[in-house]
């Protein structure tokens, strides 16, 4: 019984790649989760491998009880999105995950030109909690059971997040999509 994505990808998502790409990869991730930190580099490789054939979407799934900086990091990334810099912040956090903390978020915010008082308020007031919590609950409803969880064209990817496993799944959907369009 494969779990399926219950919340369709929409303009309120953070999306990389061609909107007409035949395959969409959705990740539910937590900025403090070390597995997500490893998967981050694998996803980059997968994106390079497929080019405009693949669209990538990142959704929040912070496990705040075990990862105290997951939520502040998600707030920082959502604020960056307001300034059109979501992916820059997302990448910056994962590439420096070993020193994730409030100072790192301000350092990255500074590099991206985010107003420090806006960043401070977003973190302190959980300004984007509706969006972050909405992502989380949509994930729970879709059968996300830990982080990272991936969906390939709306079907949960139950293999590992290793390159070969992700590519095998994406290839299968790609050939399906090609067969349909013929």
């Amino acid at each position, binding site marked *: 019984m494969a779990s399926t994505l219950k919340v369709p990808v929409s303009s309120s998502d953070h999306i990389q790649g061609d909107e007409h790409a035949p395959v969409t990869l959705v990740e539910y991730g*937590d900025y403090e989760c070390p597995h997500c930190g490893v998967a981050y580099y694998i996803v980059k490789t997968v994106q390079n491998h497929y080019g405009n054939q693949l669209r990538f979407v990142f959704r929040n799934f912070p*496990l705040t*009880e*075990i990862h105290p900086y997951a939520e502040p990091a998600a707030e920082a990334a959502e604020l960056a999105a307001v300034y059109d810099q979501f992916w820059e912040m997302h990448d910056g956090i994962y590439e420096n995950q070993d020193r994730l903390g409030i100072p790192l978020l301000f350092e990255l915010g500074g590099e991206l030109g985010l107003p420090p008082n806006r960043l401070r308020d977003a973190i302190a007031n959980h300004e984007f909690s509706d969006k972050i919590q909405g992502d989380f609950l949509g994930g*729970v*409803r879709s059968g996300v*059971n*830990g982080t990272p969880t991936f969906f390939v064209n709306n079907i949960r990817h139950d293999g590992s997040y290793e390159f070969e496993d992700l590519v095998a799944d994406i290839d299968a959907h790609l050939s399906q999509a090609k067969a349909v369009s013929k």
Partner: protein
Amino acid sequence: MAAKILSPGTTAPDFTLNVTPDQKLRLSELRGKPVILAFYPADWSPVCGDQMSLYNQVLPEFKKYGAELLGISVDGAWCHAAFVKDRHLHFPLLSDFEPKGAVAKQYGAYRDKDGFCERALFVLDKDGTITWSYCSPVAVNPGADGILRALEDLPK
């Protein structure tokens, strides 16, 4: 092969188990509220976002239905206490410790060969009748979507 766990329509067998080293909880004390029983193999699962951590994070959603969540494994009460503290769990973990697995056996959720519980989920209505149950392969975290659907389906 999944175990034969108690199915919907069955009255949930009552039990009394330790919830802390010096405190016991009786299932029937929770009558009047929906109850989620989550049997699981062991504390200290090595992965992030293991089943109990996930449920801890989804707890506010369970509470919207007025439901109580109980985690149950054969780990001892002291082990549970350390695990609860480490993972900041906000719901009780019960020790099916002595005689080992006796409650899990009543629910058909004990793995004789391994000596620990199945990953088995039960949702009970406010009268203590099982309305939904699910046994996941032991290596697969079943997530929370099934529980939420079962809670939704309870009569208001």
